[in-house]
């Protein structure tokens, strides 16, 4: 009995430790959410649609992509593909959590994986290198980020009405700036340069030629294939 209670203590402790560890990063998550909320209000996204995205998708960058394409909402398949392509990294993020979940039940895996975002994943991976933690640490961080993110989006949504010309303040450029920053954060070494340039070039040309949203998919696939062609040789 004592063993059981000390185990539950340890478990609930990990939940709160995870939540606390993610609180500092919450400031930028809040701001990022507020920007999304503002753009949602401008694009005519309803509160219930924003809420559904926050609860069921919970992946900021892909939510930005969906909202950015909102004016071409009839391009259903293009939007789904673009959003899922940007979320493909979650497959690798999931794969990297293998050792954290090695003693977990299938139920825990199904339950905890939904609230995995870039931030709580990064905090958890970093922490797991010098401490023993359970998946509840990851989940606590997820709940913390989900709360902050949601509040941020609603506050942004509400206050968007007070800013009558958002483009004057370049708020429409905010997520372009965030994506650019995230992209530079992924830079590894010189081998990235040619694939990255290919992606940018193909995206720019296909946007000029066709408009719409497919240029994102074309650029990404072209750039990644160039990457496979160049890097792949070393692995064969």
């Amino acid at each position, binding site marked *: 009995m004592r063993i059981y209670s000390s185990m539950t203590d340890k478990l609930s402790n990990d939940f709160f430790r995870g939540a606390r560890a993610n609180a500092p990063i919450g400031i930028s998550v809040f701001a990022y959410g507020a*920007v999304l909320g503002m753009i949602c209000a401008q694009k005519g996204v309803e509160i219930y649609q924003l809420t559904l995205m926050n609860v069921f998708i919970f992946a900021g960058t892909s939510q930005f992509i969906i909202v950015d394409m909102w004016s071409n*909402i009839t391009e259903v398949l293009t939007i*789904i593909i673009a959003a899922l392509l940007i979320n493909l990294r979650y497959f690798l993020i*999931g794969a990297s959590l293998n050792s954290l979940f090695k003693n977990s039940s299938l139920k825990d895996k199904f339950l905890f994986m939904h609230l995995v975002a870039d931030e709580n994943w990064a905090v958890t991976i970093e922490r797991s290198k010098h401490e023993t933690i359970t998946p509840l640490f990851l989940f606590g961080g997820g709940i913390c980020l989900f709360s902050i993110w949601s509040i941020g989006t609603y506050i942004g949504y509400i206050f968007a009405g007070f800013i009558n010309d958002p483009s004057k303040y370049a708020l429409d450029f905010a997520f372009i700036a965030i994506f*650019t920053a995230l992209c530079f954060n992924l830079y590894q070494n010189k081998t990235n340069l040619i694939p*990255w340039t290919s992606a940018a070039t193909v995206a720019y040309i296909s946007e000029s030629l066709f408009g719409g949203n497919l240029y994102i998919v074309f650029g990404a696939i072209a750039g990644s294939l160039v*990457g496979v062609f160049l890097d792949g040789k070393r692995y064969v």
Partner: protein
Amino acid sequence: MVKDMSNNEVYALIIIFSVAIGTYGLRLSGLLLSGKISDEGRIRIFLDYLPPTLLLSFVTPAILKEGLAGIIAMILIAICMYKTKNIFMSMIIGVVTVAISRNFF
């Protein structure tokens, strides 16, 4: 209630739930299938390249549409990320650069 929905609202729901199911599927299948993918060299490289090339494809036309201000913003973001690794600060720098250019030039 379904009757009152416009076509666009139905499209939005299809998009939201497809992306939700797909994203959850990616998160979970990555965990469940981990260990099996690391041997697949080429697939792994392709997947590794997708996030940055996708982000770059997304931002390039938008940055070039801003002209010189967009390119300056991009360079400042690159410097800020290199020095501080702070995404939030990079966002502020990018937005302020473009806002100044739109209001004063």
